[in-house]
């Protein structure tokens, strides 16, 4: 009898404990349901709202400057061209962190001139360091495999030899950007990681024939800052290049026309595609630089609609002569 009584009280205690646990379970379920309930279905694909934007990298109060130097040696011509517009010190101050946007689009050797000349890139990096730059990073999002591109073009080795860092993009290097007043580059992945902490940007581009847009020079060079399925912009290439020019306001651009790719661009692939044009252009105005570069390809501004479009959006002037470019020759 006593044993049964004890069992009963044991049972009662067990039941109460169980009830408490079940109650806690019920309470947790109700809480979870209340917390996570969402009666509205998900909506259509949205434009991403967290966007990055590139700041203005130009030197304030300096006004547009441009120089055109003829000569066959890139090291000499680039030095002279920079000196003519006030010297690299006018643009790079001690402690500056500089990004060099080269054209490393293809995994081809430098002799084919489909990419930025490695010695030229190294020299500009070297000059930046000489002017007191704290760091120089060289980057591009090439069309071919990045590692192969930077190695085969010689840019990686040349840049590292003068102490510059080479930034090879990975999937994580991109953030969506929307260019102000743009219609195409909206919520589009931008090669943003190498820009973090950067306060000066120099674009270094070769002069090349480009079958779709007419010519690939300093403005088209910014295409390499885009990620994603960027080649759908080829459907409206001139507006796309205009918006690229709106996206980047560089400290200066260097247009290397020592060797111009006249045909079979932008990949080239044969020395027969190249022509010695022996010219180096340094400019704070990318539109002016490209407008002059067009003449070296035997083209007019009218044949490259993106130049006028960029001019109309206030990026720069197509009338490069109005900048009174300083013309010199290294002889």
């Amino acid at each position, binding site marked *: 009898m006593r044993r049964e009584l004890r069992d009963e009280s044991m*049972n009662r205690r*067990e*039941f109460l404990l*169980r*009830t408490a*646990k*079940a109650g806690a*379970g*019920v309470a947790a*379920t*109700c809480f*979870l*349901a209340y917390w*996570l*309930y*969402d*009666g*509205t*279905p*998900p*909506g*259509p*694909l949205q434009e991403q709202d967290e966007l990055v934007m590139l700041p203005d990298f130009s030197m304030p109060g300096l006004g547009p400057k441009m120089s055109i130097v003829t000569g066959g040696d890139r090291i000499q011509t680039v030095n002279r061209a920079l000196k003519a517009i006030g010297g690299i010190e006018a643009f790079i101050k001690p402690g500056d962190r500089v990004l060099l946007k080269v054209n490393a689009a293809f995994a081809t050797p430098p002799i084919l001139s489909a990419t930025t000349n490695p010695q030229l890139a190294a020299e500009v990096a070297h000059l930046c360091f000489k002017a007191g730059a704290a760091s120089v990073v060289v980057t591009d999002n090439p069309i071919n495999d990045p590692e192969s591109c930077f190695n085969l073009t010689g840019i990686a080795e040349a840049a590292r030899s003068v102490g510059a860092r080479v930034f090879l993009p990975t999937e*994580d290097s991109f953030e969506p950007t929307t260019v102000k007043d743009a*219609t*195409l580059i*909206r919520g589009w992945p931008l090669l943003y990681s190498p820009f973090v902490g950067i306060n000066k940007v120099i674009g270094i581009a070769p002069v090349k024939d480009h079958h779709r847009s007419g010519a690939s020079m300093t403005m088209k060079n910014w295409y390499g800052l885009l990620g*994603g*399925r960027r080649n*759908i*912009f080829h*459907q*409206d290439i001139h507006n796309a290049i205009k918006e690229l020019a709106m996206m980047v306001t560089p400290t200066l651009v260097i247009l290397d026309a020592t060797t111009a790719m006249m045909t079979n661009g932008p990949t080239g692939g044969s020395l027969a595609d190249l022509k010695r044009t022996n010219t180096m252009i340094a400019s704070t105005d990318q539109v002016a630089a490209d407008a002059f570069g067009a003449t070296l390809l035997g083209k007019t501004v009218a044949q490259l609609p993106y130049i006028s479009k960029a001019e109309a959006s206030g990026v720069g002037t197509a009338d490069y002569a109005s900048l009174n470019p300083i013309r010199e020759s290294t002889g």
Partner: protein
Amino acid sequence: MTIVTVRRISQALFLGLFLWFCIVSSLGREWWQLRGWPVNWLLQIDPLIALGTMLTTRVLYSGLLWAMVMVVLTILLGRFFCGWVCPFGSLHHFIGFLGRRRRPAHDRITLNQYHPGQCIKYYLLIFLLAAAAGSSIAQLVRVTHGHSMIVSISVIAVLAVLAVIAILRFISNPRRAIGILLVVVGIWMGLGSFLPLDRMNAASLQIGLLDPIALVYRSVNLVLLPVVDAGIHKLSTIQRYYEGAWLIGAIFLAAVFLNLRIPRFYCRFLCPLGALLGVLGRFALWRMGKTRDECTACKLCDADCEGACQPSGEIRINECVLCMNCRSSCKEGLVDYQTSPSASGEITSPDISRRGFVIALISGISAIPVLRLSGEAGPNWHPEVIRPPGALPEEGFLARCLRCGQCMRICPTNIIHPAGIKGGLEALWTPTLNFRVGTSGCQLNCIACGQICPSAALRPMSLDEKLGRKDYATTGPIRLGTAFVDRGRCLPWAMDRPCIVCQENCPTSPKAIFTRKQFTTVRGGVLLVKRADALRVEFEGNPLEPGQFATGDYYCTVGIETDDHRRRIVENSGNTLAIAPSWPWQSPPPRGSFVRIQVHLQLPFVDPKLCTGCGICEHECPVRVKRAIRVTPENESRSRERSLLLPLAGQRQ
């Protein structure tokens, strides 16, 4: 009326309800067709579906709130869903009953003994939940990032307490427990700080593969109904087809017939929902059990035990499906549904090992990232994987799709099909569009699939949104893909045959398929004139088939090929042809000159700005086996990766 009879009525009721829901999931004007019947209700009361989607989406979507009612009831009453509600369970129950009804009691007792393999379902549950939890775990690990200190500390505190409790339960050595805890917290903090786990981890909802409700909906929708309806055509005017339905059918039949070997085989060994409910019912207030330990040990209570939970001895609470057979078979009346535990004791935890738990957990978490290495959800997209209208972007879609087949059942044109493995193993049986079968393409004015989808993997949308009207005029219609003409197969393009069935059937206005006119000289169509008058020309020999060029699509020209000189042929015999009398020759072609016979072709082109990828052109294309115009998911609205066009100049913001 005994409790077992009540249970049988309940089972029959819910099974009937389920079949009714499947039958009425058809579009039409009859009262018994879709009229707001809650056809998804059995999916919505399924706690595993609710839990799975909560893990993948961190949201309890709409009707899935019903599942919380089932969870509460299960916590209070035990695993009654399996024995009283589940239509799949009832089917197993019935087949198992048929299989053993003439067998002697001792055979039945052996059949219904607990089997160690019954723990498999818990591992499956852990595996499936872990596969769904990957992204949530990653988020949890990084919860301390980007939140205020208070949130971070409180989250860490709650997790630490939970971890201590969990570890102490596993091992009774507190010092060792604290040690393990420190290691776990250390690893956790390290992972959260240094590894972008949210990018390494991927999750998708795989529970639909084995969830009994999704499985039985899928099987009945895609196999049973099409086979039955093929003879009576009450549900569909034509034979319904579903790609790869054989596999779904084979699994269904295997699950059903395994009951003849072991009753409720699926429920006992495989069912992840049963496993979940078993765990939830652990503290149930009422449970089956013996009122007295001492009995005659006749074991008759085990003879018809549906859950194989051994009511005769220490009853396994989480295996018990509350069929109540033990209560009615006990001659002494010693078994009851009661508040106190069985007098012979009970086992309340599933029989799983720590090692097995960890294996299932790790393989579940890693399953999706490994499956994604094939790239079918990314750059290696299969051109035939076209999702129905309203499908979320692929990752969100896979986080919600139950593979229940409701969209495939409801689609009035039978174009929604279960994907085989072409979308990757991860997307097995998810809905894809096949425009070759069925009665048409995706109907312009139909939004049925998104409306029926229980988990909004296909989000419900209005006709206005689908068609890009009113508020949606700027975004334009929902695009499923884009049609491409295969010029090597197209009759006018490749074979000089007038056709343009695709253009005729293109439902958009203006039509996305347009044509360009072309006159082509037919093969052997240069003929030597014997004599001619103003309306007739006779040729040397007998070069023509009578009537061959009298279709109205053929013209003839004399001399140089220009439009002005083309005259429509109205009639031809073996060696003559007549031109339309409205435009006779001023000077008939002289003897010895040549007449060219030309066919007027309209060559189809697709305007990608207007094409919605509805697939009606592909469905109608007379080149049957491999269509000459085919839709691929290029430019579908839900994906940036597959966008094809820049926005129209006029549509840019």
